[in-house]
């Protein structure tokens, strides 16, 4: 009988696991087809409308990033706003926008895509989010921090038409916080597990230093004091975490700081459409935090 149960269990999982992969894959594929469809549609519309004197406004982006845009048909009259202004307006239209957004990437086996993450970061900036944290549990982004930052600068230029390298000449190259870049009103931080539990332990050791210097007693420590000793002191706690990938866990992302964070899951960080991204923001805006009451 045990053999039968095991067999049924294997069949069940054989159906469920590919289902998750298929959904992910379809999202990627559909994303590509959706992009192809939009290009053909634009081309066809242009061919039809051009003789009538209408023009489609082409966004500044090149290459694969185009599919992340919406391309409304432009009628006569003043040219439509640059996408970044529309994204900013979208952000303002929400009841609440996260102050700090965490992007947690849980890729299963393959290496995460730096350009896809960069484009999500840039969209966060465009919509008006002031702080963005990027995290993966293997510390890949942290070890390749400059590659990610370069990719973000590139995407900012392509998607937003902004040249931010000239806004922050000193900061981006600063040595003390070189995993943190100030880019045109948003701060991007790259995190890894050492910023989570390990940082709490470091804070505990710092507190012990204060006790040995007789500045504090062991019993003086309270939640606020420990909070101030953490590296995240001065930064807000994440309001929203977008968790990408198949793993249903935060995998060590800032355990202390996520006590009230909304965790929204998306199947993959690859080819995320603006609609999916924005609907996650809408979900966060709609939720009500009763804070114990």
């Amino acid at each position: 009988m045990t053999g039968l149960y095991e067999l049924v269990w294997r069949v069940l999982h054989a159906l469920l696991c590919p289902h998750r992969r298929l959904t992910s894959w379809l999202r990627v594929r559909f994303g590509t087809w959706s992009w192809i469809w939009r290009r053909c549609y634009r081309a066809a519309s242009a061919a039809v409308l051009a003789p009538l004197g209408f023009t489609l406004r082409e966004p500044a982006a090149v290459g694969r990033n185009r599919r992340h845009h919406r391309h409304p048909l432009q009628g006569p009259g003043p040219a439509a706003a640059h996408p970044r202004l529309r994204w900013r307006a979208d952000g303002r239209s929400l009841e609440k926008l996260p102050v700090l957004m965490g992007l947690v990437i849980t890729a299963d086996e393959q290496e995460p895509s730096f350009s896809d993450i960069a484009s999500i970061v840039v969209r966060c900036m465009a919509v008006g989010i002031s702080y963005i944290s990027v995290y993966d549990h293997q510390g890949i982004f942290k070890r390749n921090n400059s590659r990610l930052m370069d990719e973000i600068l590139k995407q900012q230029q392509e998607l937003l038409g902004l040249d931010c390298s000239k806004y922050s000449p000193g900061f981006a190259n600063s040595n003390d916080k070189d995993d943190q870049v100030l880019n045109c009103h948003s701060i991007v931080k790259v995190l890894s597990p050492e910023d989570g539990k390990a940082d709490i332990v470091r804070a505990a050791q710092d507190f012990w230093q204060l006790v040995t210097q007789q500045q504090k007693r062991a019993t003086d420590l309270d939640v606020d004091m420990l909070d101030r000793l953490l590296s995240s002191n001065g930064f807000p706690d994440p309001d929203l975490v977008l968790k990408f990938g198949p793993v249903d866990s935060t995998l060590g992302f800032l355990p202390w700081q996520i006590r009230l964070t909304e965790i929204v899951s998306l199947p993959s960080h690859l080819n995320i459409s603006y609609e999916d991204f924005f609907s996650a923001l809408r979900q966060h805006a709609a939720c009500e935090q009763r804070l114990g009451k």
Partner: protein
Amino acid sequence: MSWIKEGELSLWERFCANIIKAGPMPKHIAFIMDGNRRYAKKCQVERQEGHSQGFNKLAETLRWCLNLGILEVTVYAFSIENFKRSKSEVDGLLDLARQKFTCLLEEQCFLNVCFAYTSRHEITNAVREMAWGVEQGLLDPSDISESLLDKCLYTNHSPHPDILIRTSGEVRLSDFLLWQTSHSCLVFQPVLWPEYTFWNLCEAILQFQMNHSMLQKARDMYAEELKRHQLERDQAAVTKQLLREGLQASGDTQLRRTRLHKLSARREERVQGFLQALELKRANWLARLGTASA
């Protein structure tokens, strides 16, 4: 009479339970039992009735867990933040808890109830205890580590939860077991707690099973990193020791190995001594609490 609902699973439930048990099973599940008040509003009954139904559902869920071989459950009954609620609601909840939990002492599984609890307070308390340990001379400052902090938490006698289930559709942790669930499978289910069914539990366990190998891999990787860091620190400490004694830091590998072994053995001794002292301190505190309320 047992508070955990009597009664076995139906034939169909037992059949499905046996299928699920063919895969990896969680040993410890944590629940955030959310949705009692929304349920009360939906059924147009008093809030107190919603909470009472919630407790009944807890009893039923514990029975399902026992049937599935899950012997440890942790629930978030009452947060420090919940004291912000109206006095009548708080009093009602505390009375209900007193009633229902006294019966639980006869049962043969572990039910951990987090009462007047927040994770940040728990973590802060653990850090305070470690500082106390160093102050008392039981620990060296270098003994402060993640694994030691883990052993100072209130949940130190339990393994970390394999699954954290939150009902009612909310998708946050609300200051519950933040440290312990860093690598747990998080399952957010839209059903209101008093309406939780056996099938909801099965769904959660299936999700755990689908995540199991990825989570195990991530946990093992993390544990390896911790070990590696500890070894690095120990190596640095031994190097310092040897240099202080005027010996070659990278000379005799046998000597280094012996010193490393001695270092970690001594640390283990200190940690055990500290943990025993901590247990005693907590037991005395509980005893004093008991006599104070008597």
